[in-house]
């Protein structure tokens, strides 16, 4: 590795390796054999070539903000950290595209094109830190994806180093409709298990003519939920529609003081688009909130006030530290119309387990983020919290939902996959894995509870590295 990278690009001291032992989800830790920090696509390719030839498992990592353990290292493997590849390579306004390296931070893209009246739409709460490469791997969402779509709708092309060290360019990039399978669509959101993107072409979006934001307070989440249904039922597609419950409001208030009203639930609704449309639909939104007994409606008068609303919302996870020693962030989805009944079930579960659950979520697309509060020091509480978080996910599946809306399966939820998918479903998905990574050296052991080996053993027989590490069994 030192012959590929300069000395400072290779970390092998145990103490230094420790900083990379987990990503944003700290429940899982593993110290990799080696951490490497390439600065170019060529270096990534050379590193992967060594891994491929030697059968060494590798894991790619961006800014390390993932919440499902997707960038958890493999102990016997190499961690490839892409944060030194952070150049914006090209801004092409006429074609509404920006080409970046994977380590570029999400927010930088919007900043780069702001003067031209453009922005990059996917906005995960981590956007000031998280990288585009990581966003691509996780198919990150954000508060504004109800209207504008997720990362997968904004990545138009990628140069990818495959696990066999070959390089492919998938997706049309600037031109639409590249002939063939939508390999890019399959690659985005594959949680780093199909290869490493080294160059990414993004679509940028024209800033809207008008933006209006309001905050409405309700007695409880049920009434707030009624308002959400009413807004959507009126044919309005808000740019964002977010809900926080009373526990969450309390925490946020203590942490960043946005001056939120005391309430059982708060909705933040943002509309954007052509002036006349926004004005008309904003009136309707206010009316719907009133009809659903909103106790208070605040309208953001300027950008500063809008920013304050969003500061409160985006600080929600971090703010939990104010009301609890430890918390577990859950991410699951239900059909929007099932929000009310699901929240009721969550509050029942919370009582059963004797643990508090705070709720903050993307109400427009039914993406819940229940925060299970617990004390790590208390006997048995961490285990109870994890079990409660699991039961919440199962409740969501019972209501027709999904295991994860934006945080990914990673290490954390692979055990739950059989609750949502049959063996046939998962085996079929892994056919794709076998096409991209037949030797399963690329982020092995993630997503699927039982990795399917691809039955390809070129050369003399040797035990599969993944099998050797006890991460997979042959079947």
């Amino acid at each position, binding site marked *: 590795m030192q012959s590929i990278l300069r000395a400072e690009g290779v970390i092998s001291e145990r103490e230094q390796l420790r900083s990379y032992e987990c990503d944003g989800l700290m429940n899982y830790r593993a110290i990799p054999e080696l951490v490497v920090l390439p600065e170019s696509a060529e270096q990534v390719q050379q590193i992967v070539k060594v891994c491929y030839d030697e059968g060494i498992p590798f894991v790619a990592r961006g800014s390390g903000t993932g919440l499902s353990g997707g960038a958890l290292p493999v102990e016997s493997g190499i961690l490839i950290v892409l944060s030194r590849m952070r150049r914006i390579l090209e801004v092409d306004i006429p074609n509404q595209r920006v080409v970046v390296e994977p380590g570029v931070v999400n927010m930088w893209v919007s900043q780069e094109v702001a003067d031209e009246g453009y922005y990059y739409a996917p906005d995960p709460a981590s956007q000031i830190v998280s990288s585009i490469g990581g966003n691509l791997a996780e198919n990150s969402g954000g508060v504004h994806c109800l209207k504008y779509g997720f990362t997968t*709708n904004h990545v138009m092309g990628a140069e990818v180093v495959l696990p066999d060290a070959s390089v492919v360019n998938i997706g049309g990039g*600037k031109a639409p409709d590249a002939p*063939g*399978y939508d390999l890019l669509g399959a690659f985005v959101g594959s949680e780093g298990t199909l290869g490493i993107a080294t160059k990414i072409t993004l679509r940028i979006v024209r800033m809207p003519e008008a933006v209006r934001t309001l905050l409405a307070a309700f007695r409880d989440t049920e009434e707030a939920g009624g308002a959400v249904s009413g807004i959507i039922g009126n044919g309005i597609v808000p740019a964002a529609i977010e809900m926080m419950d009373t526990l969450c409001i309390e925490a946020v208030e203590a942490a960043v003081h946005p001056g939120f009203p005391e309430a059982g639930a708060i909705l933040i609704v943002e509309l954007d688009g052509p002036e006349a449309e926004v004005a008309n639909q904003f009136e309707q939104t206010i009316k719907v909130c009133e009809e659903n007994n909103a106790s208070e409606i605040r309208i953001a008068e300027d950008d500063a006030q809008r920013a304050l609303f969003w500061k409160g919302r985006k600080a929600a996870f971090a703010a939990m530290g104010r009301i609890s020693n430890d918390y577990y962030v859950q991410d699951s989805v239900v059909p929007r*119309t099932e929000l009310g009944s699901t929240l009721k079930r969550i509050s029942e579960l919370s009582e059963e387990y004797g643990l508090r659950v705070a709720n903050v979520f993307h109400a427009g697309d039914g993406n819940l983020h229940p925060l299970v509060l617990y004390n790590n020091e208390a006997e048995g509480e961490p285990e109870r919290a994890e079990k409660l978080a699991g039961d919440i996910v199962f409740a969501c599946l019972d209501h027709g939902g999904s295991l994860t809306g934006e945080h990914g399966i990673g290490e954390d939820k692979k055990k739950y996959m059989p609750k949502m998918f049959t063996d046939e479903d998962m085996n079929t998905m892994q056919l794709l894995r076998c096409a991209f990574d037949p030797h399963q050296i690329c982020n092995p052991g993630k997503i699927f509870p039982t990795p399917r080996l691809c039955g390809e053993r070129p050369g003399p027989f040797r035990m599969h590295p993944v099998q050797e590490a006890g991460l997979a069994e042959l079947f």
Partner: protein
Amino acid sequence: MDATGTKGSLKDLQRIVGEEHAREATAEDAVGGLTPFFVAEPGSLEETSELMKLASSEGLSVAPRGGGTKMHLGNPPRELDLIVSTARLNEVIEHAPGDQVVRVQAGIKLETLQERLADSNQMLGIDPPEEGATIGGIIAANSSGPRRLRYGTIRDLIIGITVVLADGTVAKAGGKVVKNVAGYDLSKLFTGSLGTLGLIATANFRLHPKPEAARTVVVELSSTEEAGEATQAIIHSQVVASALELHWSEEAKLLAVLIEGIGPSVEAQAETASFLFKPFGETRILSDEEADFLGPLRPFDAPGAENEVTIKLAAPPAELTGVLDSVLEACARRGVTPHAAGHAGTGVTYVALFEGGEDAWVRIIEELREVWTRRGGSLVLLKAPLSIKKRIDTWGLAGDYLGLTRRVKEKFDPRGVLNPGRFLGGI
């Protein structure tokens, strides 16, 4: 094999789908000049799976078929024994208006689905021009229409899928919620796969509210530069256009922008669009009747298209002038009359070729493919007589991803049962 041979018989098919739902094929069922032996219409997922198991074990080559509107797409198949038609799989499984989500069987026709959704003031945001296309066919062929500018293509709308693989395996991916990152996104992988990875049995989509009002603003153009500049003027403005369509022929050279939404907003934006168009030529707002004829919703139905050649050129949208110039010039040099139309805002241009003869058409296609592949785009042959398809590959050279594409095919359909030869790189 022959129809009564040892590799399978009509009786075996009928045992699975019922006597009235499997028949011997006729010349009308031919694909790329090859007439299959049988056509079977399964009535359920289980029957579809049984059919595929039978085909796999008997070594039958299978082409899935929906509405049959895209059977001319692709290279002529190397082999074809059985057509599996989704005609009877045509139900809406679930429509949850409050969730803006629908689940359908793949054989439902788009028009039928849109009518159902319209009852709830909703729609699926896709509008390919072919009449009678089914949802499964639209996914498999990655068909799109003018409104892709606003709503994207089918990959952007699909949220879940159930497929039947060549060996009969039934597998699903995604779900019925709009936001979902659990497992690999096989819905997208199957988009544009032209029935070569598996048969699409059901699909789930996110829906959009049906707009209340619409206006089409048109500008008459006189040069290809103006076409490019007028397109740029709209896409960099704050007008939220549903479609931006170009028509370019001897008779008409115009760019039309479709604006949809609520009444007052549509009016205001139509005014803005007129203002933006004005420097480029005579501008007017179309009446509804005119919009049907001239506007972006007019299907690409160049006269005589049945027997002629139609290509799809994909290029970066800012290259529109260059695309038009290259087409006009390549045609003029060979005495061929082109008729172009396209989704100017997204970089898709369709060109139909008239007169000049087959040799000239082949050379034009080769020339344009060479130029635009080099510049990051692609040229796909949409419609052409068999004699031309034998001379030019439908898809052109895939980039560096052909090897990967082949590996995907080998994993999903190792025996090459599905649509052998029709796809990219002879897959």
